């Protein structure tokens, strides 16, 4: 690998110091000083057991001024930015946004990243989405629907709700089904909404957490410019990662709008929605809390409220639920590191989650994040006894419960 010469380069004796100082600048970064070395972070990390340097040990090496040894390891690429460590840390150290993300940033600056991740980053830069699809076709999923979806650049009028669709809901064939369900829901609720269409770029939150801060800023600026052209009252989004970016990260760049995840938006309109849910769905349903809706943003109740509003559904909880939810494995760049992580771990987090779902006899694994349907459906094919498990976005279940 190429040597990258800078005052923060691994191998430089002052590297630990410079890196430590940079962590103190992160929000709540000062808490790092109070690390107890209790190891709870490393214990709760879904991949901590096989990381050469789980978070706790990273901090100990940092304090011992030998952090360059951590940077020589690939271990940090096992981090799926799931917030499990941050959630349990008794000293409230921002481990996910600080330590883990900064370490990935340093590796990336040194050009030391898994090749698998590279193409997702290159695609994001070039096409505005990690899938490498044509940006002009970003709204093609909405073609041929009963309800015409307003594209802001075309309709040239203010709307009530600006729907930030996201990458996978726009391009991934499986997730597009959930996007179409959302259109139906907004339509029956008589919501005046529009999308950015080809002007929308990746929210880039996962790219940021994979260490590509510059790319995040570039794409955030593009989204900020597009949003500033139009009039709307509020943003809703189908992607918890976009929700996290718009709610917590974009405001730091001066891009600030009220934003809600679609489950929050719909739960607020339950009075209107409930009478339309007339079709019974006789199924045992369990809900997978997405990391960036739950742990990162504290939204646990609204998705459950929506599921419980569907007649016939029996909601059951998996062993890991709410703040202890297990990551699907897609966060923090994990979506683009499946091969790398499989090579290291020979397990998939998504399969672990599917095993939990079938252990509570669930018929349906309900999701609310676009990474999850494809990941869990793939996992269900690999897990014994999961053949009958259906993976459904909450939006899809709501539409199923309405009369045609």
């Amino acid at each position, binding site marked *: 690998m190429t040597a990258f010469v800078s005052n923060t380069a691994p191998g430089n004796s002052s590297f630990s110091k410079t890196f430590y100082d940079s962590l103190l600048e992160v929000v709540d970064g000062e808490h790092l000083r109070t690390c107890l070395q209790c190891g709870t972070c490393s214990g709760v990390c879904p991949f901590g057991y096989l990381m050469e340097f789980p978070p706790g040990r990273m901090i100990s090496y940092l304090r011992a001024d030998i952090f360059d040894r951590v940077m020589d390891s690939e271990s940090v690429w096992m981090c799926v930015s799931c917030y499990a460590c941050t959630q349990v840390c008794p000293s409230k150290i921002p481990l996910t946004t600080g330590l883990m993300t900064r370490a990935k940033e340093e590796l990336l600056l040194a050009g030391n990243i898994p090749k698998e991740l590279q193409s997702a980053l290159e695609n994001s830069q070039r096409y505005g989405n990690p899938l490498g699809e044509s940006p002009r076709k970003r709204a093609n999923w909405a073609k041929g629907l009963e309800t015409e979806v307003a594209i802001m650049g075309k309709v040239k009028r203010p709307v009530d709700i600006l729907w930030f669709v996201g990458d996978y809901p726009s391009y991934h064939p499986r997730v597009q089904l959930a996007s179409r369900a959302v259109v139906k829901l907004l339509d029956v609720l008589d919501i005046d909404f529009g999308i950015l269409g080809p002007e929308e770029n990746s929210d880039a939150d996962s790219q940021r957490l994979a260490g590509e801060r*510059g790319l995040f800023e570039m794409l955030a600026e593009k989204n900020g410019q597009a949003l500033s052209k139009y009039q709307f009252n509020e943003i809703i989004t189908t992607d918890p990662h976009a929700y996290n970016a718009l709610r917590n990260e974009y405001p730091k760049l001066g891009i600030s709008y009220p934003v809600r995840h679609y489950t929050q938006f719909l739960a607020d309109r339950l009075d209107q929605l409930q009478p339309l849910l007339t079709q019974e769905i006789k199924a045992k349903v369990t809900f997978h809390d997405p990391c960036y809706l739950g742990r990162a943003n504290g939204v646990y109740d609204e998705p459950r409220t929506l599921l419980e509003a569907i007649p016939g559904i029996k909601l059951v909880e998996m062993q890991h639920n709410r703040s202890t939810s297990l990551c699907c494995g897609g966060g923090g760049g994990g979506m683009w590191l499946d091969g790398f992580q499989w090579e290291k771990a020979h397990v998939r987090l998504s399969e672990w989650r599917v095993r939990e779902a079938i252990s509570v006899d669930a018929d349906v694994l309900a999701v609310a994040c676009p990474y999850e349907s494809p990941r869990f459906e793939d996992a269900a094919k690999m897990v014994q006894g999961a053949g009958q498990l259906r993976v459904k976005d909450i939006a899809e279940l709501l539409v199923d419960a309405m009369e045609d």
Partner: protein
Amino acid sequence: MNIVVLIKLVPDLVEELTIDDSGTDLERDWLRLIINEFDDHALEQGILLKEQSEGQVTVVAPDTEGVDDVLYAAAARGADKLIKLLGEFEQGVNSHALARASASVVQDLQPDLVLTGVQAHNDLDGSVGPLLAEFLGMPYVGYISGVTVGDKKSIARKEYPGGLIAEMEISLPAVLGIQAAEEPPRYVAISKVRQAMKTATIEEQEIIELDSSGGPTISRMFLPEATERATMIEGDEEEVAAKLVEIFQELGLL
């Protein structure tokens, strides 16, 4: 080691291609351009050689939309000098014209080694490398996937069909057509590309005339057309087999 890498941008196939009104060229207003994949490998190989043996990498590219970004990214990856050829390149030129235009610029740089992609998907009149070598009066070897350089000579690994590799010694200066760099083209963080945009300079060289002679004239460009030659044979196994025998006999194959 003075290394010159000649690159060009080609239509990005992520977008659908359409034919213009003349019926002999692509509709260029809608084209999105991307660095030719093999040229990207040539650039990577150049930078790897520089890192191994000291030296300087100069990247030369014709002026088309988006070329500045590609050149700055090359600088962020480790290229030392960037040269943009100014001229009527936007509407597309053939390989003969590009090779002629770059030959004089490359000559002035007095390179020890010239690298370029072995081919591009829009090379309709042969690839640029051998043409360039001819205009420069240098030897050329193509389909290279691995290069080492020594004093006035280079050892290159050339790929043959069937997985056969030949190692050959080439006296320098020479032109090599790169099939694959020894490592995949590296990723550079956007922040480093942005930094390069502030610090690197793109030198411009005017190309007064583009001479495309030697290449073919395109009389018609068209999308693949469905033919009606396929016949679906209906019936059970016996009937299908009998019909097949009949057809083969008609064609004189049986």
